[in-house]
């Protein structure tokens, strides 16, 4: 009932040509690049991996087998669990959460410092310095960390030089390099949203609280953090989603025996050529990360509209 009215209003505001150009572009984007691809991936994940000749034939029916594979493995009786893949999944989610928390803790003081010391040349220099690593390729940043964390890398050399360790520590096999790399890759996506909201906080509020005798910790807990909440949640959401969905850093910095969930997806697609199975894994990743993000946003009472500011 109401939709046609909105559309006619829309075309009256923009004219027929401009109106249809706008609608066409937005429609193409949302329908053909976002919604339909996701739906077709969902559909794909419920199908068998059939040879091309059998597609559309009698055996091309819906199935849950791809999802069952994640839980039970190739075991048809469903008596044992697919511990390898499930462990990878749990590890990915937990590690992504830890990386996010680490980034919040590391970025908050700097965001506060930058946001509250207004406009001096030094701060401006710091911001420029921050932007530079942001434009270096993700792969190259992972590569840089690999040089540092490698077996005969700089960090091991330094530790051995200082006699803190005798043998080189295998940072890569112990996944230290991976976590450092993930934290490194998306740290600026945490910093800038935080910086933006803290910058908009009126200094007088802090001054007033201080005049009334509030302690340093209390000022942060009662004034700065509540004000910065949308920025923190927005940054945390981006860092969490991107770390959980990261592929480059685990491929380059991950140990040979430990996998990231996206690497499983990658293997199903490119090594096993089983797109249906890969799509099912991707759906599991997408849905579970979205659920986590929505839960966190609900807990902290933050709207979707705050994301990306």
């Amino acid at each position, binding site marked *: 009932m109401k939709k046609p009215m909105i559309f006619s209003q829309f075309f009256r505001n923009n004219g027929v040509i401009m109106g249809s150009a706008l609608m066409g572009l937005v429609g193409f984007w949302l329908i053909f*690049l976002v919604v339909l691809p996701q739906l077709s991936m969902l559909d794909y994940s419920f199908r068998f991996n059939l040879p091309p000749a059998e597609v559309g034939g009698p055996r091309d029916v819906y199935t849950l087998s791809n999802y069952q594979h994640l839980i039970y493995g190739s075991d048809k009786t469903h008596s044992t669990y697919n511990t390898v893949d499930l462990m990878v999944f749990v590890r990915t989610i937990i590690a992504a959460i830890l990386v996010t928390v680490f980034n919040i803790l590391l970025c908050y003081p700097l965001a506060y410092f930058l946001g509250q010391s207004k406009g001096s040349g030094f701060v401006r220099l710091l911001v420029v310095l921050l932007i530079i690593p942001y434009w270096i390729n993700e792969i*190259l940043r992972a*590569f840089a960390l690999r040089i540092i964390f490698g077996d005969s890398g700089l960090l091991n050399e*330094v530790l051995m030089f200082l006699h803190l360790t*005798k043998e080189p520590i295998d940072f890569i096999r112990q996944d230290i390099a991976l976590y450092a790399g993930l934290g490194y890759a998306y740290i600026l996506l945490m910093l800038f949203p935080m910086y933006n909201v803290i910058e908009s906080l009126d200094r007088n509020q802090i001054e007033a609280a201080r005049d009334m005798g509030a302690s340093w910790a209390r000022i942060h807990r009662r004034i700065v953090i509540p004000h910065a909440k949308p920025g923190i949640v927005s940054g945390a959401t981006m860092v969490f989603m991107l770390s959980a969905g990261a592929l480059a850093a685990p491929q380059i910095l991950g140990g040979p025996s430990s996998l990231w969930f996206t690497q499983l997806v990658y293997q199903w*697609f490119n090594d096993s050529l089983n*797109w249906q199975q890969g799509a099912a894994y*991707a759906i599991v990743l997408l849905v579970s990360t979205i659920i986590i993000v929505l839960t966190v946003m609900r807990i902290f009472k933050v709207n979707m509209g705050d994301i990306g500011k």
Partner: protein
Amino acid sequence: MNSKSIIRIALGAYLIIFFSYLLGPLVVMSMTAFNSSGFPSVSPWACFTFEWFRVLFDDKHIRDGIYYSVIIGLGTVLLSVSMGLAASIVLTQVWAKFRSTYYTLIIAPILVPGVVLGISTLVFWDRVGSFLGAGEGSFLNDLFHNGIFLTILGQSSFIASYAMLVFVARLQRFDTGLTEAALDLGATHTQAFRKILLPFMRPAIASASVLAFLASFENYNTTTFTILKYKTLTTVLAQKVRLGINPSISSLAFIIIVLTILAALTFEAYRRNQDRKFAISQGKAVEKSGGFLPSFMRGNPAAIMLVLVSIVVIVLVGTAQRYSPQECKVQVREAKQAEIQLRIEELRKQRLIKDQSEARQGPDIFGTPSPDEEEASKPSGAFGGVFDPNNLSSETEEEESSGGSGAFGGVFAPTNLDNGDGN
């Protein structure tokens, strides 16, 4: 007063830690580009060299990758900027109740993992191809399985959201009265858009385009699924890094870092100049005259830095044309050979001692080096002369990791030698 200075020190330490975490890896990586050692490393410094840049420029895969990255980048800019602009304009007009749903829809692609976007694009267009009945070898089938086409679509799906955010920020300051006035004066909607909104949006379009191009250029997660048989710079790099690393990648990183710094400085210098001109025209600042600096550098540290960095780059490129590390390399090779010779001799000596001690005391003290061995591993005079300290640590490192010396590995560790000399 005292607690204040503690806070200051803590803040300074924190800033140093943060920035060394952020910039340190890049600095180290840049340095490895100039070390002649075949594995990217800094600490066993062999020779200062430019050869990795030549290796980089001769690499056909990287050149191809850059070529396709640029094509895909341009396509993505065109598509995502226009979609982002349209989406942001629609956002200003959309029905209030539908607004937050619509915003969720257009912001969501940023949050969807890139892997998922890549897969869904691949799967969807494969489906579209079979739905349209495009047979093997037909034009549509080729198009829907073309890596460039798919990558542009896959990347645009989320880069358009970034562009949209840039436009939304700018549109908030747009006075819709201007468009209304134009329409009242008889302009068509298209004219009003082209003559009023578009010029107003031009700075945002420029920055969104740069952002979109860079985002496309450095994207990996989506691209690696949609690129199929083509390659972009990032997929080439990822493959190289995974298969085995060599410093030519560091040299590429160095070039990118220098370009980024130059671009950032240029932008900053330009902005400061604009600010200053604005301040002068408002009468808030005075035009400083005199001094020996040209006018665009006055009161503008960014511009001074820009000039300095440019000079350094020019000098570096100039040296690269003439400088040759051949001599140093020969030295390193000779030192290496001398060292290998020495080690063979040592091994022989130690084996002899070991055989003897075995005969004397039985096999139980095997692993632990006896005082005799310690002595033997310290042929004091010849040692210091042959190795210059850098070479020494590098060679022992490599030899050790190749695992030649078996039970004696511990004895040969560089730290042990240092201890021995120190004593």
